């Protein structure tokens, strides 16, 4: 009796252990019960407009499958299997096979790949995954594994990833680049041919004469501050051009100009500019190199130095033209407190409010560049100012057109204009 009992026990134990140790993967047939599942297909294609190394997989997600998960395995033309993803909800509709360049299993351009989709209601176990990646003989149909059923879906056609030469999504950028370049070339050519391109007067520049004149009347020098930029900074270059004009006036009025500098190279350039202007005005004898001096290359040290000089020399007119940062108000305020006429200009938007508040005239942003062009009248620069203006006209026309279309379309509810507006709106979206 005992022996029989022991025998039964050992057999059932054996069955139990065996059944647990060796999970059974069974093929339940090619016919999947649900016709929708049968019609479920994955499309694989190269990701367009990219630099290669990527494949995009897409599928529909029928309502009936909304609780299901999909796992995807990639098999390359040599038969190597790589797991792309496991257990993502069907509803996500797409996945991209893109990997870091250091990844050995990444998608390589011009190598063929197939993808198999595995649909399941539960998460796929680690064991099943191993089987799928190692020994599984991929064939469409319904399978069961440890009593869980899952589907293996038709593989995709062989796909190849490739790098695109051109990103068509950015076509609008190319077109605008061409338009802008052609505009610039056109105006540069016009200017070179000697066509007289008009440039309007800049308000602050008219005040230069007044400021220099008044300062001379009071017997006070003029101070010209170039800010803390280097020669490579465009506002500093514009400031140097304006300095030429101011220095010429100074020479004509036979007064004195002080240029405290932050950067040695800017200082040397300023010396040349002033010397040339004095020569042009016919008074090279009045030029004094020591009036254009180096202060320090420390932001607030410079500000303190210039402030001190203002207090001692009490200039009648102060020009602040160039690149300014936090020291702008310190300088402009001291200038204001000694009662000088101040003409400022910079491109730093954060500093402009201080200048507007503390100075008599301010050249705002682009006005400063235009002022230097106005003074120099160099054809290349005149051409670029004209081209910029033309492009501003284009932008304004687009805005006005958009406004009109929107008014007619959305405001007066005329369908035709609404459609036109939508087309314009889409075209601008890059």
């Amino acid at each position, binding site marked *: 009796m005992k022996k029989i009992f022991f025998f039964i026990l050992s057999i059932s134990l054996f069955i139990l252990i065996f059944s647990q140790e060796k999970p059974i993967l069974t093929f339940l047939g090619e016919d999947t019960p649900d016709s929708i599942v049968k019609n479920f297909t994955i499309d694989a294609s190269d990701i367009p407009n990219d630099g290669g190394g990527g494949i995009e997989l897409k599928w529909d997600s029928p309502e009936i499958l909304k609780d299901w998960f999909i796992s995807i395995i990639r098999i390359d033309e040599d038969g190597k299997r790589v797991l792309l993803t496991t257990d993502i909800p069907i509803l996500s509709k797409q996945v991209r096979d*893109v*990997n*870091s*360049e*250091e990844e050995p299993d990444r998608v390589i351009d011009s190598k063929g790949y197939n993808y198999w989709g595995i649909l399941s209601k539960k998460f796929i176990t680690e064991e099943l995954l191993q089987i799928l990646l190692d020994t599984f003989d991929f064939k469409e149909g319904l399978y069961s594994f440890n009593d869980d059923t899952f589907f293996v879906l038709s593989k995709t056609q062989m796909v190849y990833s490739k790098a695109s030469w051109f990103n068509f999504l950015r076509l609008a950028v190319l077109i605008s680049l061409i338009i802008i370049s052609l505009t610039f070339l056109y105006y540069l050519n016009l200017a070179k041919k000697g066509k007289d391109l008009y440039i309007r007067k800049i308000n602050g520049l008219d005040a230069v004469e007044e400021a220099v004149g008044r300062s001379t009347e009071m017997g006070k020098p003029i101070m010209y501050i170039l800010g803390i930029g280097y020669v490579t900074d465009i506002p500093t270059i514009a400031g140097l051009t304006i300095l030429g004009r101011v220095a010429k006036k100074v020479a004509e009025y036979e007064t004195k100009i002080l240029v405290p500098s932050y950067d040695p190279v800017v200082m040397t350039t300023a010396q040349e500019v002033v010397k040339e202007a004095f020569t042009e005005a016919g008074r090279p004898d009045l030029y004094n190199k020591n009036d254009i001096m180096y202060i320090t290359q420390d932001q607030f040290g410079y500000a303190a130095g210039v402030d001190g000089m203002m207090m001692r020399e009490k200039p009648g007119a102060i020009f602040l033209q160039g690149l300014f940062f936090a020291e702008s108000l310190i300088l402009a305020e001291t200038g204001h407190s000694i009662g000088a006429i101040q003409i400022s200009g910079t491109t730093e*938007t*954060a500093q402009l409010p201080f200048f507007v508040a503390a100075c008599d005239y301010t050249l705002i942003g682009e006005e400063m560049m235009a002022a230097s062009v106005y003074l120099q009248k160099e054809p290349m620069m005149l051409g670029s100012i004209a081209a910029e203006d033309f492009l501003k006209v284009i932008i304004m026309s687009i805005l006005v057109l958009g406004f009109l279309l929107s008014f007619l379309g959305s405001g007066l509810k005329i369908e035709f204009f609404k459609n036109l507006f939508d087309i314009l709106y889409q075209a601008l979206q890059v």
Partner: protein
Amino acid sequence: MRFINFINKLDKRWIYLVLALCIIIPFLFPIGFPMKTTAPVKSIYDFIEDSIPEGGVVLIGADYDPSTMAELHPMAKVIATHALSNNLRVLFVTLYPQGAGMAQDVIENVLREWNNSNPDNQKELGKDITLLAYVPGVSAVVLKMGEDIIETFNEDGYGNKLSDLEVMKEIKNYNDIDLMVELAGSAVVLTWLIYANGRYGLNVGIGTTAVSAAEYYSYLQSKQAIGMLGGLKGAAEYENLLSKKGVYWGRKDATVGMDAQSSAHIFFIILIVLGNIAYFVSKKQKGGR
């Protein structure tokens, strides 16, 4: 008239002194000015709260140094804390050498406060949060990240290999980043907007100093940025939102400063009004003579 003369000749140092008092007194005796949450702040908060699934990634750009720390440091703290509270992963990135120290300080603070208050949900450096190493190049770095983040940095800010870190799991490029919040007082914000948002469509939020805030409003309107924290006020609003949610424990650096901020502003308004009166009166006098 004596009053106008007094204003015109007032020694600036008196103004400094009164300003200092305006700021110190509210710290000692808090007033509790009311505060409203503004839309740009709320939209960053809502984005982290609702639009990022658990395990998602928030990238925080720490491109500031001690000079603007007062405004931007509290922002870094609140955003990192908020992300951790939703079980998101947090990556700090910096395009300037000084930013690394700032980011490390935030990470250390946030982790300490979080772990002290949440014994059953401990967060770890390298697993939930880290700092990407500083790499020079600014816009080149931002562009390279769009291709491959791990390859761009190789290491985290503590010298560990990025590919070994759990926090970097399944992160390749901007496609795997749910939100980027750039904290800076300089034009580097534009670099993120132009390259990361413009080219790769990354969601960018801005945290900036009040000086720059006005400039960046146009990018909110154009939807290039999803939201903005402007100055100390922005940080304070965010702190309030987090405390309402019940996940903020640290010292509310920004909120306690708000009283001082408001009283200083009142002082400035008075100065501006007085200054203008003095200006116009003395101008009229001169004209009359």
